[in-house]
């Protein structure tokens, strides 16, 4: 296990350096400049030169890259010249929001999706299976903004029992203190993820139902509940774990569309605005953060595989 972890950490560092180099290069290939974006078209050449000097943008791209990496090694993610705040602070404000939103949504999707998929597999080709299948397809095909707007139209406008926007605080505890505001955005995101989790679970369970060990367990007279939960569900969870591992970057990367619809400025909008404003430090900080999440997510998925399936050896 230790060797596996060391190997993966080394791989992660290489991947992150690659991500940084590519992001850095792509940002500098983009037309326009951060100085123009920040100062506007009326900015004089001297003002632009001054801005570039102050922000270290007058040096060559390679030199800028190494300066950035140097600061990074000292724990400094940089300073947003567009938003006049440190990148760490900006991420610190946005990240808890998405951890709460996407975290809850994923949890709800798992709590409903796993048993629903299992149920569909066991009751395959019944009305119950067809009905859940239909709901899953509809949700899966639905763009998040559309689902969000439908939920808003019903629960915030037609029958106004829920607020039309998410809690507005930047403090996680204060956000949690207004759970009603989280209901609609969480349900919107959960609706989309739910469909994916249900379908993965259903298909995996159907495969496992045809396996010998299930027939053996039945022949041995094990209780049905034990067969379904201990044997079928545990073995069918592996593809869901893969999906869950891929969800981690989404948790830190935010949910742009839902953030937009429900006025909930999280990581997605932070990145979106940074891209429009040529806010290099934020773009780089964000990319690095999501890169780390991808690597960690995959690593966690690998570890959970080994826990769920003793045949998998990490070494």
């Amino acid at each position, binding site marked *: 296990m230790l060797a596996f972890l060391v190997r993966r950490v080394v791989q992660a560092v290489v991947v992150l350096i690659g991500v940084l180099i590519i992001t850095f290069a792509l940002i500098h290939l983009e037309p326009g400049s951060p100085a123009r974006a920040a100062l506007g078209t009326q900015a004089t050449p001297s003002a632009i030169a001054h801005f570039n000097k102050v922000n270290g943008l007058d040096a060559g791209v390679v030199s800028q890259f190494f300066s950035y990496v140097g600061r990074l090694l000292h724990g400094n993610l940089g300073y947003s010249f567009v938003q006049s705040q440190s990148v760490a602070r900006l991420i610190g404000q946005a990240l808890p929001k998405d951890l709460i939103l996407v975290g809850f949504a994923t949890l709800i999707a798992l709590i409903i999706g796993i048993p629903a998929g299992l149920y569909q597999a066991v009751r395959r080709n019944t009305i119950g299976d067809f009905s859940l299948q239909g709901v899953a397809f509809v949700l899966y095909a639905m763009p998040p903004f559309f689902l969000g707007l439908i939920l808003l139209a019903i629960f915030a406008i037609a029958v106004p029992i829920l607020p039309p926007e998410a809690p507005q605080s930047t403090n996680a505890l204060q956000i949690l203190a207004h759970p009603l505001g989280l209901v609609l955005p969480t349900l919107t995101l959960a609706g989309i993820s739910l469909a994916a989790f249900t379908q993965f679970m259903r298909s995996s369970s159907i495969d496992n139902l045809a396996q010998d060990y299930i027939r053996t367990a039945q022949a041995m007279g094990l209780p049905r509940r034990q067969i379904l939960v201990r044997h079928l569900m545990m073995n069918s969870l592996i593809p869901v774990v893969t999906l869950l591992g891929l969800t981690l970057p989404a948790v830190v990367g935010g949910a742009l569309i839902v953030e937009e619809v429900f006025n909930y400025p999280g990581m997605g909008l932070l990145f979106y605005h940074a891209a*429009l404003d040529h806010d290099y430090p934020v773009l780089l900080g964000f990319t690095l953060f999501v890169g780390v999440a991808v690597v960690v997510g995959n690593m966690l998925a690998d570890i959970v595989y080994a826990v769920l399936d003793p045949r998998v050896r990490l070494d």
Partner: protein
Amino acid sequence: MTLLPAVAAAGVLLAACGAKGGPPQSSTNASNGPPTRGGSATFAEVPGDQPDYIFPIDPAVDQTVANSSDFQALMWRPLIWEGNGQSTGIDHTKSLVSSVKYSDGSKRVTVTLKPFKWSDGTPVTSRDVEFDFNLLKANKKSWAMYTPGDMPDNVTAFKIVSTHTFQLTLDAAYSHLWFTNNQLSALIPLPQHAWDKTSASGKVGNYDTSTAGARKVFSFLSHQGGHLPTLASNPLWKVVDGPWTLSAYTTGGRATFVPNKHYSGSDKPHLSQFVELPFTTDTAEFNVLRAGGQIDVGYLPTQDSKESRVLESVGYTLKPWIISSIWYMIPNLTNPKVGKVLSQLYIRQAIEHVVPQKSIIANILQGYGYPEYGPVPLKPTSNLVSPQERKPFYPFSISDAESLLRSHGWKVNPNGTDVCAKGGAGSGHCGAGVPSGFKLALNLLYSTGNQGLTLETEDVKSEAAKAGITLNLQGGPVNSVFAQTAPCPTSCNWQLGEYGSLTYPSGLPTGSGLWTKGGGLNAGSWNDPTTQRLINATLHDSSLQTFYRYENYIAKQLPWIWLANVDGSLAEVNSKLHGFSENVYYALTPEDWYYTK
């Protein structure tokens, strides 16, 4: 003063022009009784434009409507308050000066202040104006509104005559209209007794009287002004002379104000609280409006303009908010490929002839717009619009465009591309630098951030094609278009550029900086001695005829192609809230808002 280029990035335009007095034009909701004291009102901020800088001398990066008009101006009043409801000109109630007198052949200005007090009880004095002036003078390059030659360069001496009177000696005689509206309006008295220091723990002195000291003070204040976590708690910002004081602020841009109990003006707040709410997008803001109850003054995104009745049903009243702005397409006269073509006046006239302004207003803008025929907007109503500019010099006419081209040696190919048949200079020829065989195909770089702008651009392309003028549309994100539409040699490759609108910050829309050589917004590199002379004349001569000469000349010369103008914003106001008026410079005046019993 520099001008604010504004981009319709989210269905609402940024900031705003003009000159005459008179009572405020009330466009408020009908009042059913006397104002009550108390109550709270909320205002929806424009997405992406949240207040984030409190020190009222903005650097370029923080020069936004959200900061200057919607935030700082609630706490610190300028000498001259521009805009009187939906009328251009000065609001004398909200201005800090009681009189402005010109003498010595208009080279000396004597200004007398009203007897205002700061929130800590100290009088607002001439020394506070001098403090602001000294900071501007020593730090002018860090001030977004600075234009070389204008304030503070054009003031050679600042003399304190008495506690409430000061005198400015000018380097030349200036138009009273221009100097009062465009220059004095930029001066904001600042509390010298509380702010003239170089560190939080340092003592207050007279540091501003030396250039080095003023730079240190400015550096300290600007740093504090951008430190978001302490905006509402920093003692510096508690000393105000405006009607409001900031009581809470979140780094996301939510700002809560309570009345300044010691406000000296007659327009004291009726409300007990005023809150500005940030929104991620137009959609989010519109959703909250539709739900009703949370926003008192919001806006209807232009793409949702057909939905006003829905909002009416939940208690809102639609109030189109006209801002003094102009919309345009910039020809790049120094582009290596088409610069010589675009330099031909008849070509620019032909392009103007194919802009179907009326149909754009009716069909694309749903009626929330008005025509534009020159550098001075037709709305808000102002005597600055010359009688000639009230009608189009080049009305929409495909046949007129074709005739112009034919008469200048072009073979016109409707729905194809026109070709120059008689190249070179001379009567009946295409013009100097335009060779025979040259095809009239132009690249138009435009911002895709605004649906209305996109549709308008596509409509112009469609009409231009009928006259054989091919416009190749190149859409891009607003900041990218902004950045590329810069003067050559910074950026030469673009041919026609269109990124949104421009609003005059206040006062006289002179065109200085727009079409003067080296002007910050002269992206197309317009370089014409007559224009320069006429603009200079408007700065030094108050007569309307002088202004009209400049205005008519620019309208006819088409340094920019005039496009249909769009209402600045479609304000939606809670029907129970009264006193709201749409300031033509986008200033917010919640101190005038009230509820009735």
